């Protein structure tokens, strides 16, 4: 059985763990620059505040209903995400971190899902929805139902219920792996729901959606086709990872791999004109019964959102030092970039123009200064969307879990 664990309104839930006054009231979280709404509590959704809407468009609504507004606090979200993923890693044999707030896990039995949900909530304070199914695609579909229908936060597609009816209720555009272009094509061909797609003719699918599409169709039929370690690219996360040919125990070779993945991920970011605010490194063994199993994760919040490869490589190496522990035969490592936002145009141009040798000297000098006076004392103007967005974070909550001077206060009165 495969389960997709998805944190509910993740950024809002993170804020609520440390500030109970936010429970039961409408809350939204804004993107870098406090520009757009990127997370909403259920109460805020009920007020009709759309996802991604520019903040100024809902300012009146916010004022009228006393909506609580926060700047994004990536230090907090990154750390809480890591806690959720580590908890899943302890509780289940196999975890594939899919994005900042989603993970696929393998379950021995589907009735473990409820316990898993309770444990994540207890240990981290983050509520989740869990969809269970025989394939990743069906687990993902089940997750939608867990959010919409199930009151307990768990929906098991294999536990009774009419799968036909459920899939008939799922627009084909919402099927995992079906992009906007394919969805339009399918609708035009008279296949508007997941059920239609599942029952489509293999030949037709292969001709119109290629082999990847056919894989999705088979997954909808309950035949696992998307292996656990593979994942379609998702826009809110850039992941570069690979399984090693041979299990590796020593840090050296893993570090080389991770540096490479970080550089690749940076290139991906730049191609899409994005910058990342959170970097996560992971190393994992595979689950083979008796072999000691371990997933090491480390999540860093970057001083400024960046797509600058040397920085990302450096942070990835730093993260690996923390994620790695000796004594395990690692089979896979990877770098994930999250908290993505459009990069400044200036940034891209500077990369192209910069002289690598001078830049290296500059970086070394920066490193020395930052080591001495603290992270972020000096940063490249190239990273410099920073200047503006650093100032426009007027509503950020304390970094409760990553700064000694911003810890949550507990009242003794």
């Amino acid at each position: 059985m495969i389960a997709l664990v998805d944190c509910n309104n993740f950024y809002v839930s993170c804020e609520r763990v440390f500030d109970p006054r936010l429970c039961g009231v409408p809350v939204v979280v804004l993107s870098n620059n406090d520009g757009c709404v990127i997370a909403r509590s259920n109460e805020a959704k009920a007020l009709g505040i759309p996802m991604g809407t520019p903040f100024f468009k809902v300012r009146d609504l916010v004022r009228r209903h006393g909506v609580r507004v926060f700047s994004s606090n990536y230090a907090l979200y990154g750390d809480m995400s890591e806690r959720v993923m580590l908890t899943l890693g302890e509780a289940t044999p196999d975890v594939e971190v899919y994005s900042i707030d989603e993970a696929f896990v393998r379950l021995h039995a589907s009735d473990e899902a409820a316990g898993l949900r309770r444990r994540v909530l207890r240990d981290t304070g983050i509520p989740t929805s869990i969809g269970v199914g025989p394939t990743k695609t069906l687990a993902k579909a089940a997750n939608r139902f867990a959010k919409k229908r199930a009151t307990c936060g768990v929906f098991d597609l294999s536990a009774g219920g009419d799968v036909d009816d459920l899939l008939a209720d799922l627009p084909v555009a919402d099927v995992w792996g079906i992009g906007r272009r394919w969805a339009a094509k399918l609708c035009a061909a008279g296949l508007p729901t997941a059920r239609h797609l599942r029952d489509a003719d293999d030949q037709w699918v292969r001709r119109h959606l290629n082999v990847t599409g056919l894989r999705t169709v088979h997954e909808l039929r309950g035949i696992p086709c998307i292996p656990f370690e593979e994942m379609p690219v998702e826009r809110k996360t850039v992941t570069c990872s690979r399984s090693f040919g041979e299990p590796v125990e020593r840090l050296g070779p893993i570090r080389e791999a991770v540096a490479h993945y970080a550089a690749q991920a940076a290139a991906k970011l730049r191609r899409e004109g994005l910058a990342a605010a959170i970097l996560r490194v992971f190393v994992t063994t595979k689950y083979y019964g008796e072999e000691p199993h371990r997933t090491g994760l480390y999540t860093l919040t970057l001083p400024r959102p960046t797509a600058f490869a040397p920085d990302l490589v450096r942070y990835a190496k730093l993260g690996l030092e923390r994620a790695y522990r000796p004594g395990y035969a690692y089979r896979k490592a990877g770098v994930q970039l999250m908290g993505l936002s459009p990069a400044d145009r200036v940034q891209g141009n500077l990369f192209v123009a910069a002289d690598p040798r001078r830049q290296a000297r500059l970086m070394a000098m920066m490193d020395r200064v930052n080591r001495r006076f603290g992270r972020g004392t000096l940063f490249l103007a190239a990273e410099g969307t920073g200047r503006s967005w650093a100032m426009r974070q007027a509503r950020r909550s304390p970094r409760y879990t990553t700064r000694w001077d911003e810890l949550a206060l507990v009242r003794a009165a």
Partner: protein
Amino acid sequence: MASSFTKWELPLYLSLVHAGFPSPADDHLDRKLDLNDYLVRHPAATFFVRVQGRSMFPTLRHGDLLVVDRSLEPGNRDLVIVSAGGEVAVKRLVSTGGRRMLVSDRDGYPAIGPGGEDVAHWGVVTHAIRTFKP
């Protein structure tokens, strides 16, 4: 994350400092003491918070740092963190004859009885850290 906190590494009696990266055999050597090992049993569920107020005196003082483990079941006489009335608070859990009360250690501060206000358990305090000389 607990692993990201400053590590206080105190050399015990290692006579050699290894350069390069540890081999798996290093696991069997004596290593520097790490307060994380002492204070944090469940890293993913462990949070640090700071005491504000004097209702738990003399057990806790204003400004004490608390290590809170959310994964533990609260037991009788445990120091617990709860969210109550929109605040996160530290109290002592006292169960008597199936009745659970949240009390302060210092006289003159109100206790929270069952069903009083909206109270939710947050975590169990496992350690307090007090600074005597910053």
